[in-house]
């Protein structure tokens, strides 16, 4: 097979200067690949939304598209029809994201009985008690109000699996897509040039089933460790927060009268409770890996007590409680009685749904660019973000809307949808916008990770100031609602 590596060598050296060195981790495939206009790697929220949007728009429905997903999509669907238990992977979808899903026709495939819209946000500083109240009505004057229904709603809590199941069903109804699942990407390399057919700029994806697909445009919707990004030689920079995002589906003492999101900044990171239908809620607690280990090992009763403590007790109390091996429930009950409560706190947690406690490492990463020749990155493949503003999935929805718009205008003007020129619009629309949101979330995280008195002082000044500055709050609110 020496000749094959020789062709490979030739192709590498023949690449135009300036293009990143392709990670070609296999020899080219001998059989000729099937040609597609769009090959999307990754069938998470971003990838499925992309395909749905492409198939449902008249201008792009003629494109030949394929999806490659490593996991078995058929197994990854919502089975529970009673909204009493919920998946621990939930996201808050902004009105802008919901609007987009409605626009492409996917929203009606979502089980709305499992979706919880919420109308308010209570955010406060655990050290100083300084508070910022997000209430939509206050900021109405600066916020865009697309419809009466949306105007009261900051966001919609939805299980990721509800979203992806809906998208899968929508795609089934639309038809016309080649879906390879479960099929892991094994290698990506450039195609061959034979006679008049020159695939030397086309990425060819080889999947675990043995099939090969050549892509006019290869979309990486393949998550934080994107193999497509690696192939394109696009660097992704950032840092780990040395924090874990603990998630759990929790049960409240009673159904809250008003559905509100609560977030308290602790020195280890924010603890957030987001409403689900009925008495249920979704917990996202960013904390140190050590504390995450402690919390994971607790009994249901003690874990619930720690969540209640997280929203109510002081930093030294919490530090002490994390040092105990068990018995937090009693300790917390006693301490709660002796801690004066100021302002709104969430309804008391009384239980945790079985097998829903999990923890994910948190990181901030941003790819250097979202596009290269015949490559586009969307969703977590392009950026991962601290979950404190619940923006990760929403940024991905914004990416999809922009990329589909870009592809549409390229199709309408006869451009090759994989050309860098055609894809430029996507990067320029999304990069700076995403960077701003990522920067704000990162700064908030850093600001609240300090315990030293001067910074806490500044911080309370900061939050009170933010609370008073209508326009700044308006900016934060609009970004939280994805309407900026």
């Amino acid at each position: 097979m020496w000749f094959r590596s020789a062709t490979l060598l030739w192709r590498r050296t023949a690449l135009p200067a300036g293009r990143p060195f392709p990670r070609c981790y296999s020899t080219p495939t001998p059989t000729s690949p099937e040609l597609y206009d769009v090959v999307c790697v990754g069938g998470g929220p971003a990838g499925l939304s992309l395909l749905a949007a492409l198939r449902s728009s008249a201008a792009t429905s003629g494109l030949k598209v394929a999806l490659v997903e490593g996991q078995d999509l058929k197994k990854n669907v919502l089975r529970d029809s009673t909204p009493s238990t919920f998946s621990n992977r939930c996201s808050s979808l902004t009105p802008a994201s919901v609007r987009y899903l409605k626009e492409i026709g996917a929203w009606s495939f979502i089980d709305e009985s499992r979706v919880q819209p919420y109308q308010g946000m209570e955010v406060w500083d655990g050290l100083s008690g300084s508070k910022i109240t997000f209430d939509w009505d206050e900021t109405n004057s600066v916020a865009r109000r697309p419809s009466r229904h949306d105007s009261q709603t900051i966001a919609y809590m939805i299980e990721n699996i509800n979203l992806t199941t809906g998208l899968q069903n929508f795609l089934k109804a639309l038809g016309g897509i080649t879906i390879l699942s479960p099929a892991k990407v094994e290698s990506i390399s450039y195609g061959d040039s034979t006679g008049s057919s020159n695939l030397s700029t086309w990425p060819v994806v080889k999947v675990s089933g043995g099939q090969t697909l050549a892509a006019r445009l290869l979309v990486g919707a393949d998550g934080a460790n994107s193999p497509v990004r690696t192939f394109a030689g696009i660097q992704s920079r950032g840092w780990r927060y040395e924090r874990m995002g603990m998630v759990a589906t929790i049960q409240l003492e009673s159904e809250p009268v008003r559905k509100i999101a609560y977030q308290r900044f602790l020195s280890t990171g924010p603890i957030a409770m987001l409403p689900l239908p009925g008495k249920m809620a979704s917990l996202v607690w960013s904390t140190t890996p050590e504390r995450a280990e402690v919390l994971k090992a607790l009994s249901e009763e003690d874990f619930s007590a720690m969540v209640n403590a997280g929203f109510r007790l002081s930093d030294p109390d919490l530090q002490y409680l994390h040092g105990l091996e068990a018995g937090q429930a009693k300790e917390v009950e006693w301490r709660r009685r002796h801690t004066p409560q100021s302002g709104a706190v969430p309804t008391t947690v009384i239980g945790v749904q079985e097998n829903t406690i999990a923890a994910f490492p948190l990181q901030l990463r941003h790819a250097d660019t979202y596009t290269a020749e015949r490559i586009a990155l969307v969703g977590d493949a392009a950026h991962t973000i601290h979950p404190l503003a619940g923006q990760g999935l929403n940024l991905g929805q914004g990416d999809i809307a922009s990329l589909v718009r870009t592809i549409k205008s390229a199709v309408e003007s006869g451009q090759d949808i994989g050309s860098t020129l055609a894809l430029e619009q996507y990067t320029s629309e999304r990069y700076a916008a995403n960077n701003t949101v990522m920067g704000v979330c990162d700064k908030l995280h850093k600001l609240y990770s300090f315990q030293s008195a001067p910074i806490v002082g500044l911080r309370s000044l900061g939050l009170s100031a933010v609370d008073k500055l209508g326009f700044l709050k308006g900016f934060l609110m609009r970004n939280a609602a994805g309407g900026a």
Partner: protein
Amino acid sequence: MTTPKLSRIRLPLSPKPTLTNSTIRSPTVRHHTTSTINTSEINHFNALASSWWDPHGPSRLLHLMNPPRHTFLRSCLASHPTQPSKNLHLLDVGCGGGIFAESAARLPHFSSITAIDPSPSVLTVAQAHLALDPPLHATNKLTYLQSSIEDLPRTKQYDVVSMFEVLEHVSNPSNFLREATQRVKPGGWIVGSTIARTWTSWVVTNVIAEEVLGVVPRGTHDWRKYVNEYELRAWFVKLTAGTDVGGMDGGRWDFRSQGVVYVPGFGWRVVEGGEKFGNYFFAARRME
């Protein structure tokens, strides 16, 4: 034509219309040949061939102008409801590296595209670039020919004859246009873009674009060859009236135009009245 040196070009104080009896003639054409092709122009474009498709290369502005070309052409075609909207045959004159021809070939309403250019090296580039899109190549919709318009048989007529950024590069626009009009079917269109010969266009294309910003390669433009919108319009009026040189029946034509301006950071924008001072699109429909 050699690369114009700034010092050699005198500022035009009042750009004079150069409409003679029946032809639009560039003020600097010193000799008449039967060919509308200018050899120094060919050499200039040969030299640009290799970078034709580089999105950040010297042809960037042309690439950016391509989508608005289609928008303009689509609006023309849509303006006549009786117009067949499918299976159109297109002749692209002065196709260069194929920016417009290739994109037209991807559109479903064109069933064939014949793209011609006198420069062999740009055609090699066009052909090689087409091969990078095997599905498109396999449709055989797009044919590149090394030819001038006058060498094409007059018996074959097209639904659309396009000439984007060509008029300002030919030696004898009047002859060139006459050749083009004879290849348009009744009910068909001539469509193109060019630059008006005005103070502004001289400063923008020769000074700013070529010399200051360097976004257009030096020597691409000879300002003296630019054709004004009113000259072009008048030319079609005369052709329609049958007062054209030679007295032959040139058909009846309905002319229109649209000014466009390049706004750095935003791309090409339609600007009403822009045809009077800078780049503009034009189209003329041959009435049945």
